[in-house]
């Protein structure tokens, strides 16, 4: 219930916001649109009064008519008075501002009898027909006369026959034009008129109106304009209006543009004219039947339509004002529930995220295009683009003027457009704000993904080749387009600038597209290259034996991995990276799980893995290779870990065992010692004690040896390498063992160089090596034989050898350096069986080489070291 209300409230908030904004924009633009051109004519009161006679259009219409009537009275022919929206007066047949196309359009409009809807002077096809006959761009009659006779227009006596004939023709046509003119407006009884000249009534459509300055108005008429040859009097609703003010006409004021001002005096011809005009209070629609064609024909009816428009405008304005107020009020309210609007906006963004990005772009373009079209079609000026072009042409010198025109162009855009524009912009902004990677959801992106997914199946090299080809083509095409665009600009440039704009625009657009394509492909290549760098670095590291995971290890260059690759990588091996760093107990299970995961990520499989893989393929070329490498790495790391662990366990086991052995051994040795010191034991008991003593000592040695050799084998032996003299080492060892050697039944023969033979080794360990070798030799040599100890240095290599003759047959198949292997199978002699094994381990730990050779009964051990330079 509560949540339902909340969601309803949310929707309500947004509706309020929507209505508020829409109403405000709609009505504000409507107000602007209906606002008259010159702000000085902006008379809200009048608009609301419904009095059409207070409008600018009416004032304009009346003054136009007055000018026409005056022209008829004086010249016999009406001038062609145009009315422009901006309020200019001009006279003449033609107007430079209009292009031919627009004129033709106008004529067609006229031909379809759209009389009175606009405030044009009544013209029709015939009327223009005359004008066509005169066909020149002459601005007035005077000019035309001059062209044909080259003399003063008043001096008509000296004309040639031809000129006279044409002048006659002209006079006839003028007469016809006047008749046509009055025929057109006569039936429109909303405007009554009477025109007198020199005391003679020329034209009138009313019996009531006399041209004697009477202000008696007929029933239904409330506006009178009377020109008595000097001044114009206007009487409205029985009251006279002061139209001259201080006697000067000002263009920018509300002054009536009629003769009689000090700066707009009445000329001599006009002084004989008397014109009286009356306007109806509530104009009616006058229609006459067309007997010959069987239809109906509306009279001029300008005043009727003027009033109609005025009332409609007034109504619309009022509605606009009401709408604007309501909109602002709603906006105010919506400010109070911003949270709801924000949530709604998020919801909308969520929905927007589901829409293909192309649709959104098309919508945006459609709205902009509609606006553009409207700009071109709006009835005023030349359309915004041409205005821009002109403004550019004039180097923005008249920016203020054109700026005004541009603004007025914008004003004439419809309210619907402005509202639509706002909402489209708002939606775009909303989309961009909430859907960060919104561009990825679209047809093009989907195609791109599909292409990438297909591409990724190709071998790496093919992919690269293809991509570079695309890049090449894109560059060439864009280059050509730029060339074409430039040529077009140069060719059409100066004078046909309308076309060049669009050509240039298209060139720029397409080039931009190609540049974008080139950029995308290039970026992919660069990324691939970077990934390759990372990959090769990774391989290098693995080769060097760094099996640690990619991400927990800072120095692995994970900083170089770009974001997408990282994603891809983690998707395959996220948990593997986690467990890889803890090579302790029980990591086997985790490792295998990680393997499964990684394999899933590598081979395109179903479910979540596939989705992630899709994303990965979109991101990076090498992600699969990376994942595979990661797989290999994990396999190797696992194997190495296993091996290290078992080795470590072995050492630990031996250490523990030797410790556990040592403790009881300590007691045994201690108490055997006490027994040994005991006096008065029987002789055989003393023998037993002696054996116990020997064996316990041997046990002690064995325990120590086992420990040492196992440590050496697992590479955990701490070494203290230093430069030493190999020969001296041998001499010292023999000196150290001198006693044993003297007491043995073998003799030593040495052949050692006097000069030092320097090698790099751990002296203590090497002492142990030779001690063992010499002990072996003493133990297993044939009685009375000799042990040969030699050292030879050949500049690079120092080789020490110990040769002795075995007292028993040597088994060629036996590996003497194997732990616990001994010369005799009975294992009853004193050694631990580790002597040679220790010797070999220590030698190798010091970086030397240990070799065993048999030759019949000759047992040879060779130990070689590289001679240390310097």
């Amino acid at each position: 219930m509560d949540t339902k209300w909340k969601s309803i409230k949310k929707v309500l908030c947004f509706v309020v916001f929507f209505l508020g904004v829409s109403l405000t924009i709609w009505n504000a633009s409507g107000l602007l649109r209906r606002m008259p051109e010159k702000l000085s004519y902006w008379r809200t009161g009048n608009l609301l009064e419904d009095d059409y006679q207070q409008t600018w259009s009416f004032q304009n219409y009346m003054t136009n008519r007055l000018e026409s009537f005056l022209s008829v009275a004086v010249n016999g022919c009406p001038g062609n008075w145009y009315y422009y929206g901006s309020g200019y007066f001009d006279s003449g047949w033609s107007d430079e501002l209009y292009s031919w196309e627009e004129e033709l359009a106008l004529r067609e409009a006229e031909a379809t009898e759209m009389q009175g809807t606009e405030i044009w002077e009544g013209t029709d096809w015939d009327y223009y027909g005359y004008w066509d006959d005169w066909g020149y761009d002459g601005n007035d009659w005077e000019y035309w006369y001059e062209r044909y006779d080259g003399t003063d227009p008043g001096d008509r006596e000296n004309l040639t026959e031809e000129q006279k004939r044409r002048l006659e023709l002209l006079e006839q046509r003028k007469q016809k034009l006047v008749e046509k003119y009055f025929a057109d407006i006569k039936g429109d009884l909303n405007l009554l008129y009477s025109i007198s000249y020199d005391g003679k009534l020329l034209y009138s459509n009313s019996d009531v109106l006399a041209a004697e300055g009477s202000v008696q108005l007929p029933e239904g008429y409330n506006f009178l304009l009377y020109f008595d040859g000097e001044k114009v009097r206007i009487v409205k609703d029985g009251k006279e209006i002061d139209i001259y003010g201080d006697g000067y006409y000002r263009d920018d004021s509300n002054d009536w543009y009629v003769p009689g001002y000090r700066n707009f005096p009445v000329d001599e011809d006009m002084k004989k004219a008397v014109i009286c005009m009356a306007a109806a209070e509530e104009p009616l629609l006058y229609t006459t039947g067309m007997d010959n064609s069987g239809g109906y024909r509306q009279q001029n009816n300008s005043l009727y339509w003027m009033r109609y428009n005025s009332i409609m405008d007034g109504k619309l304005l009022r509605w606009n004002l009401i709408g604007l107020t309501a909109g602002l009020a709603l906006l105010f309210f919506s400010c109070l529930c911003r949270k709801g609007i924000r949530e709604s906006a998020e919801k909308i963004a969520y929905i927007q995220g589901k829409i293909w990005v192309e649709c959104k772009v098309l919508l945006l373009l459609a709205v902009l295009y509609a606006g553009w079209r409207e700009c071109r079609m709006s009835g005023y000026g030349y359309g915004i683009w041409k205005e821009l072009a002109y403004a550019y042409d004039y180097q923005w010198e008249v920016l203020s003027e054109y700026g005004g025109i541009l603004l007025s162009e914008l004003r004439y855009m419809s309210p619907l457009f402005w509202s639509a524009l706002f909402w489209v912009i708002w939606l775009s902004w909303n989309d961009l704000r909430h859907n960060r990677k919104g561009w990825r959801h679209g047809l093009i992106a989907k195609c791109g993904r599909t292409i990438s997914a297909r591409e990724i199946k190709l071998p790496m090299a093919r992919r690269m080749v293809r991509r570079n080809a695309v890049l090449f083509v894109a560059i060439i095409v864009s280059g050509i387009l730029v060339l074409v665009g430039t040529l077009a600009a140069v060719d059409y440039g100066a004078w046909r600038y309308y076309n060049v704009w669009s050509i240039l625009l298209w060139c720029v657009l397409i080039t931009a597209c190609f540049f974008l394509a080139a950029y995308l492909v290039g970026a992919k290549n660069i990324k691939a290259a970077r990934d390759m760098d990372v990959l090769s670095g990774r391989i290098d590291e693995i080769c060097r034996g760094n099996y640690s995971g990619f991400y927990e290890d800072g120095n692995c260059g994970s900083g170089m991995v770009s974001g997408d690759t990282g994603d891809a990588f983690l998707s395959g091996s996220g948990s593997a990276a986690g467990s890889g760093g803890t090579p302790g107990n029980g990591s086997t299970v985790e490792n295998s799980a990680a393997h499964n995961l990684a394999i899933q990520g590598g081979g395109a499989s179903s479910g979540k893995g596939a989705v992630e893989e899709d994303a990965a393929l979109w991101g990076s070329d090498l992600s699969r290779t990376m994942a595979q490498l990661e797989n290999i790495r994990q396999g190797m790391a696992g194997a190495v870990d296993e091996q290290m662990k078992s080795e470590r366990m072995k050492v630990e086991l031996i250490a523990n065992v030797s410790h556990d052995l040592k403790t009881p051994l300590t007691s045994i040795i201690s108490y055997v010692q006490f027994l040994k010191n005991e006096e008065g034991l029987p002789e055989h008991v003393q023998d037993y004690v002696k054996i116990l003593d020997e064996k316990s000592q041997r046990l002690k040695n064995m325990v120590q040896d086992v420990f040492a050799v196992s440590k050496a084998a697992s590479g955990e032996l701490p070494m203290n390498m230093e430069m030493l003299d190999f020969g001296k080492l041998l001499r010292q060892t023999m000196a150290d063992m001198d006693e044993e050697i003297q007491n043995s039944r073998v003799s030593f023969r040495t052949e050692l160089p006097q000069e030092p033979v320097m090698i790099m080794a751990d002296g203590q360990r090497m002492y142990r090596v030779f001690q063992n070798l010499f002990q072996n030799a003493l133990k297993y040599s044939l009685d009375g034989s000799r042990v040969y100890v030699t050292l030879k240095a050949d500049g690079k290599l120092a080789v020490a050898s110990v040769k002795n003759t075995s007292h028993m047959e040597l088994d060629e198949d036996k590996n003497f350096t194997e732990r616990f292997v001994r010369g005799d199978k009975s294992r009853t002699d004193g050694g631990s069986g580790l002597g040679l094994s220790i010797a070999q381990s220590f030698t190798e730990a010091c970086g030397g080489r240990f070799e065993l050779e048999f030759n019949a009964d000759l047992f040879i051990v060779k130990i070689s070291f590289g001679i240390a330079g310097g």
Partner: protein
Amino acid sequence: MSECILVVDDDREIVKAISILLEGEGYEVLKAYDGMQALDVLATHPVRLVLIDVMMPKLDGLSALMRIREKQNIPVIVLSAKSEDTDKVLGLSMGADDYVAKPYNPQELAARVKSQLRRYTCLGDIHAGSRIGEIRNGRLLYRTDEKVLYADGEPVKLTAKETGIVDLFMRNPGRVFPAEEIYRRVWDEDAFASENTVMVHIRRIREKMELNPKEPEYLKVVWGIGYKMEKH
């Protein structure tokens, strides 16, 4: 009066063996079987020396050693089955005065106990500055003017050549001398096959002054280079 020694080990037979050994030497022996007991005994008895095992229940030897060191400055000998150099270094750096690996040699152990006690009781602070004409190195003292070597305060009887070698080493502790140089300086002759001769002498000196001549602490062989007097 006999001096009181505390033996701490979780293996009762070892404690017993040591106590028999030390009582045979004329010391009074107190026994404890873990670290806590050892601390209790130390709190209540005037102990002059402690022999302590490392791996023990409740409180291990090294932790007990640290606690003992908080209060007392009596000599402590650590007794452990761990014989690695790193273990020895660890024990000594934690404050032990000596480190004996199991299985120990009874004579050596007795000698070490004796040595520590003598240094502690007779010589007092070993860090006291040497007098002129005296060279002190650990438990060794060499009087240069008399040319007499004292080990744990007792004079060591040496032959003339041995005295020459000791004189050379005590004056240059830490320096490595090749056999030839020793021979030249002591025998004052050109060296020829000097290695064995020097070695024989050194072995004899060791037997006179080292606690365990097979694992010398002072007069050491630097294999492949020469011999040196270790600095303590």
